């Protein structure tokens, strides 16, 4: 990569700002499938109306602007610009160069098409090459093995298991913390580039 590398452009998707006009309706629809919220947060899952979603987007931009600890991008189709999901780095501690990542593809029909993988790769490059982070963390529930597999595929290593920290559907699950260090990301990236050349 070099200074003219477009950090937000993928092959299938691009990372882009929130569209306050169009996005609230789409994401409000997604929130009616509670499994998305459950995968992302530990607070009680509930659907959000379009108005609530609008307020949430405003709060997100305010958070990005005022705290300087958060970067929030929408994931959009490269061709048609349709909203696919979001990816964010949050809880950045500049003193220690660390941050946490969250990623969502909202509509289940759009999952498994490579959008999430591309968004993650763009966001990791942004985190390590632009924000100069030393490490990126992800927290996932044991009830979401697809997410554990997904992040592991990109080099994330399991670091912490907070035993039975989630109670859902009458069952207990571990909260799993994964981490990726810049050196590990660099090593796996250079391998990939070698692969591309072959």
């Amino acid at each position, binding site marked *: 990569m070099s200074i003219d590398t477009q950090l937000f452009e993928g092959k299938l998707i691009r990372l882009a700002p929130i569209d306050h006009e169009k996005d609230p309706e789409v994401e409000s629809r997604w929130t009616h499938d509670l499994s998305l919220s459950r995968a992302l947060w*530990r*607070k*009680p899952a509930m659907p959000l109306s379009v108005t609530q979603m609008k307020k949430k987007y405003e709060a997100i931009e305010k958070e990005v602007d005022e705290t300087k600890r958060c970067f929030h991008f929408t994931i959009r189709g490269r061709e048609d610009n349709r909203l696919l999901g979001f990816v964010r780095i949050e809880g950045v*501690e500049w*003193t*220690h*160069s*660390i941050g946490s990542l969250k990623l969502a593809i909202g509509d289940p029909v759009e999952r498994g098409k490579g959008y999430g993988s591309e968004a993650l790769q763009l966001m990791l490059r942004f985190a390590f090459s632009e924000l100069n982070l*030393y*490490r990126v*963390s992800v927290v996932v529930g044991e009830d979401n093995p697809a997410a554990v597999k997904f992040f592991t595929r990109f080099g994330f*290593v*399991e*670091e*912490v*298991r*907070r*035993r*039975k*920290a*989630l*109670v859902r559907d009458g069952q*207990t699950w571990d909260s799993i*913390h994964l*981490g990726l*260090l810049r050196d590990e990301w660099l090593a796996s990236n250079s391998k990939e580039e070698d692969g591309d050349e072959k």
Partner: protein
Amino acid sequence: MKNDLLTGKLVHLTAENPEVMAECFSRWNQDSEWLRLLDTEPPRLFSQKNWKEWLEKNLEKDERDRIFFAIRTLEGETLIGFTGLFDLFQQHGDTLVAIALGERKFWGNGYGSDAMRVMLRYAFNELNLHRVGLIVFEYNPRAIRSYEKVGFVPEGRVRGAMLRDGRRWDYLYMGIMREEWLAKGIMTS
């Protein structure tokens, strides 16, 4: 009044006015070792006035996701530190606990462990949580030993999460389940 649930062998847990805690925090924060054992944020040496405003805003508001108590000695009623619950998720029965003794001369004499045992009893017997977790820094072996003594077990380490004095340090996660706490049999009723 000494409520049994909040009273240990050496200390009891109390609610304090913001101006009382503000004086303590402003003073304790000037002990950089104390602060570096406690927090990842760089010290800012806020004034008592600033602390008071912060405490009024943050500690007086609703208690659904955090709880804060001061630690006072039973003998002499000296305010020696604080303990609190944060990231409290009642629906998951889980919380993180924090504890710190600002008064250095009370370090290493069992006051912290005693306060932690009282806090655990509160978490398990009053809040009915089923686990309590904590984060401790790799360079704080004294705290790690004290948590082990109370019954916490290691749950993992976040590699290199902190950069201090030119090197990377891990955060350690520890946790104690209700059954482990019951089995330990200290101050369970």
